[in-house]
C-alpha cells in the first residue's frame, strides 16, 4: 500500500451536536428566517396536534349519536347572546357541539388529505419511476394513461366512483365506503402530477453517473430505482405533496357539496361547511363560520409551508 498521496482531508471532522447541525441546516434556517413560515408551521402543528388528540380535547364525541341531544341544537356560541356554557362554539342542527365537531372534522379532513396524497403519490411515484427509467413503449403507455386520467378531474371521478363503489360494496355501509371513495378519487386525480414530475427527474437522474456506477456493480433496476433514484427525486414530490394536501382537503369539501362527501354522522370540515351553508341566511352563523375558518386557516398554513418548501428546495432561488 502506497503512502497516501496527500494528507487526510482538511475538513473539520469533530462531530457536532444534533442541535448544532440543525441550526446549521439551510432548510431549518430558511424556515426560521421567515415569520410567516414559522407562523404557518406552528399553526399546522397545532392543528395536527388538535386533530391527533381530538378525543382528549373535545368535550364530547360528535361521532357518537347517543351524546347529541336534539334539544341542544342551534345553541349559539358560549360568548354570544343565548349561548350555553357547555358549548364553546355553539351547536349545530343536531345538537352537536361545534367545537368537538370541528376537532373531529379536522381529524377526518387531514386523514383524507394525507391518505389521498399518499395514495396518489404511491401510484404516481411508482409509475413515474418506471416510465422514466424504462422509457420506450412502457413509458408511452403510462403517459397515455396519464392523459386519459387528466380528462377526469377529481370531481368527475368522485361522482362516478361513488356510484361504482356503492354498487360493488353493497353490503358495507356508506360511512365506510365514503372515506375510501374520497381517498381514491382525490388520489387518482393527483397521481399524474407525481408521475410526470418523477418521470422527468428520473430521466435526468438515471443518466447521472452515480446510477451508472450502481449499474456497474450489477444492481437490479428495482434496487437502483428504490435505493438510488427515489431519494433523489423526492424533493419536488414533497412540494407537490404539501400543496396537494391542501388541495385534497378543499376538494373533499367541494365534493361534500355535491353530495359525495362524508356522511353527516361523521363529518369532515367540508361536510360541516356543507351543512353550515344552509344556515347562512338564517342567523345561525356559527355553524358555517367556525368550520370555514378552521379550514381556511389549515389550508392557508399548509399552502404557505408548501410555498416555503418549494423555494427552499429550489437551489436556484437561494
Amino acid at each position, binding site marked *: 500500500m502506497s503512502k497516501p498521496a496527500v494528507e487526510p482531508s482538511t475538513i473539520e471532522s469533530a462531530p457536532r451536536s444534533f442541535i448544532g447541525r440543525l441550526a446549521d441546516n439551510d432548510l431549518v434556517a430558511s424556515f426560521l428566517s421567515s415569520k410567516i413560515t414559522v407562523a404557518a408551521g406552528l399553526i399546522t402543528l397545532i392543528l395536527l396536534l388538535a386533530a391527533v388528540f381530538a378525543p382528549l380535547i373535545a368535550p364530547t364525541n360528535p361521532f*357518537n*349519536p*347517543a351524546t*347529541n*341531544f*336534539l*334539544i341542544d*341544537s*342551534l345553541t349559539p356560541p358560549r360568548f354570544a347572546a343565548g349561548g350555553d356554557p357547555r358549548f364553546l362554539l355553539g351547536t349545530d*342542527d*343536531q*345538537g352537536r357541539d361545534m367545537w368537538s365537531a370541528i376537532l373531529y372534522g379536522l381529524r377526518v379532513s387531514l386523514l383524507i388529505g394525507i391518505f389521498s396524497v399518499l395514495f396518489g403519490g404511491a401510484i404516481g411515484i411508482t409509475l413515474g419511476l418506471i416510465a422514466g427509467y424504462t422509457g420506450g413503449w412502457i413509458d408511452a403507455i403510462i403517459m397515455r394513461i396519464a392523459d386519459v386520467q387528466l380528462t377526469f378531474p377529481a370531481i368527475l371521478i368522485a361522482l362516478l366512483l361513488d*356510484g361504482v363503489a*356503492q354498487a360493488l360494496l*353493497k*353490503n358495507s*355501509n*356508506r*360511512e365506510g365506503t365514503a372515506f375510501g371513495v374520497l381517498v381514491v378519487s382525490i388520489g387518482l386525480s393527483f397521481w399524474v402530477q407525481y408521475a410526470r414530475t418523477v418521470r422527468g427527474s428520473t430521466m435526468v437522474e438515471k443518466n447521472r453517473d452515480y446510477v451508472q456506477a450502481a449499474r456497474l456493480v450489477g444492481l437490479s433496476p428495482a434496487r437502483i430505482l428504490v435505493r438510488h433514484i427515489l431519494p433523489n427525486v423526492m424533493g419536488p414530490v414533497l412540494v407537490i405533496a404539501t400543496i396537494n394536501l391542501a388541495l385534497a382537503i378543499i376538494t373533499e369539501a367541494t365534493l361534500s357539496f355535491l*353530495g359525495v362527501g362524508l*356522511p*353527516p*354522522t361523521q363529518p369532515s370540515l367540508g361536510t360541516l361547511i356543507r351543512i353550515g*351553508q*344552509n*344556515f*347562512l*341566511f*338564517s*342567523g*345561525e352563523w356559527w355553524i358555517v363560520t367556525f368550520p370555514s375558518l378552521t379550514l381556511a386557516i389549515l389550508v392557508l398554513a399548509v399552502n404557505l409551508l408548501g410555498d416555503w418548501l418549494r423555494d427552499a428546495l429550489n437551489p436556484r432561488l437561494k
Partner: protein
Amino acid sequence: DAGAKTLRFAFQGELKSVDPYQINESFSLSVNESVYEGLVRRGPDMKIQPCLAESWELLDPLHWRFHLRKGVKFHEGQDFTADDVVFSAARVRGAGSDLKGRIPADADVVKVDDYTVDVILKAPNPLLINEWESWGIFSKKWSEEHGAMDATAMNATTPPYAALHANGTGPFILVSHEPGVKTVWKTNPNWWDKPRHNLDEVVFTPIANNATRVAALLSGEIDWMDPVPLNDQARVNANPDTQVLAGPEIRTIFLGMDQFRDELGHSNVKGKNPFKDVRVRKAFYQAIDEDAINQKVMRGQAAPSALMIAPSIYAEAKDFKRIPFDPQASKKLLADAGYPDGFEVQMDCPNDRYVNDEQICQAVVGMLARVGVKVNLNAEPKSKFFAAITAAGGYDSSFYLLGWTPTTLESFNVFQYIIGCRDQKTNWGGNNVGDYCNPKVDALAKSALQEMDEKKRDDIYKQAWQISLFDDVGYIPLHQQALAWGVSRKTHVIQRPDNYYIFAWVTMD
C-alpha cells in the same frame, strides 16, 4: 309593454318535459296543468270540480258518463271534442306513458257523441276520477299532425315533438321550453273559463341550490319559489318584500323496517330478523321523539302524524294519537325481545328528496342510539336511494325513511302501495319496501273499494289503520312535512296541500 305582468317562478328541480304523460312526478304534472286540462280539476279546497267535462254521472258502478264542455278550443285553434278525450285516454295508457294507472287498462273509453264520453269499467272504482286532473287532454288532430301519438317511447331515435311543444286548452300557452334552463308561458286570451289571475307571462327557472334560490327571492329577482328551506324561513319573513307561505303538506314521512327477510341484509344480528318481532318495532317507535324532530329539525313546521295519511284528506285522523315517546318503555321492549344491549342496523335515507330528510334521519340515529340501537346512516342522493329500495333494487334496505303522497288524496292509495302485502303480478304493495304484511288489512282495504259511501269507507280504513299502525306497528309514521313557498309580497298565490302550482290563481300587484 310596461304594464305586462310577468310571474317569475323558481323550483329546486327542473321541468323534464312539457308532455304531462311522460313522467308521473307531481312537479311536472302540476306545472303542465296550466297548459293541458283534464276532464276534472281540483279547487283551492282540493274539491273536485268540473273542467273539460261539465258534468258526469254514474250510470251504474261500472259505467261512468261524462258530458263535455262545448266551445272549448285548443291553443292552436282545434275544437275540443269527444274524439280528443278518447284519443287521450288511449295515449295515457299507451307506450311511453308514465300515467298508465290513471285509467284501468281494461276500461273502455267510448265516444257517445261529440260531447259525451262513456267509461266502462270491469270493476267498480269510486276513486276513478280522483287523479284525473293530471290527465290532460291532447288534441287528436295536433298529435297526429306532429307524430306525437305516443308519449315518447324511451328508445325513440328521434326527439318527441310533444316534449318540447304543447297544445292544450288551459289558461296558459307554452311559448318556449329549454329543458332544464327556462320555460316561458303566456296567457291564453281565448280560455273558456274566466281567469282569476292577472298575469301576462310566466317564466320558470330551475334553481337547484337552496341558498341561491333564497337569495334570488330576497333580491327580488323572482316572485315565487319552492321550497324555502326551513332554516331560511325566518330570514324570508324578516325581509319586508317577501314572505313564506307555510302549511302542512299531504306527504307523510315515515320509517319502514324490513319484515320480510329471515335475516336482515344490513345488521349485526345474524340468523334472525329482529324486525319480525312487533316488540322491536314498537321499541323503535317509542324511542323516537317526533316532537323534538318537529321542533328542532322541522322548526315546528311539520305536523306530527299518527297515521300515514294527512288529516286534511282523512276526516277520522283526529281519532288517532301517536304511540307515546318513551325511551324507558322502548328499552324494556327491546330487552323483552331479547336485545337488552340493542343491535346494529343500517338506515337508508335520501338526502335530497324530502324536507330535511337527512337531518331527520340523523336525529333518529341519535334517538335510537340512546336506547342502545346502533344505526349506521346511509344517506344518499335520491337516484341511488330509490335504485336500492325499489323492486328493481330488490327492496334492499333493512331500515329506511320514505315519504308518500297518496295522489288520489285518499287512504286506499296508501294501503295499495305501501301497506299491502307485496304481490309482483298486480303491483299490489309495490312500494311496501319492508313488506309489512297482514292479510286482514289487505282484505279491509279491498273491501273499502267496493264501498261507495264515503263515511262507511272511512270507517273501514279506521280499522285497517288501527291494525297496521298500532297493533302491528308495521310502519313508524313521523309527520306530514311542511310546505313552504316563498313569495314576494306583491304576488298572491293560493297554496294547496298537494303542493300544486296553479298559475291560473296567481295575481300580482
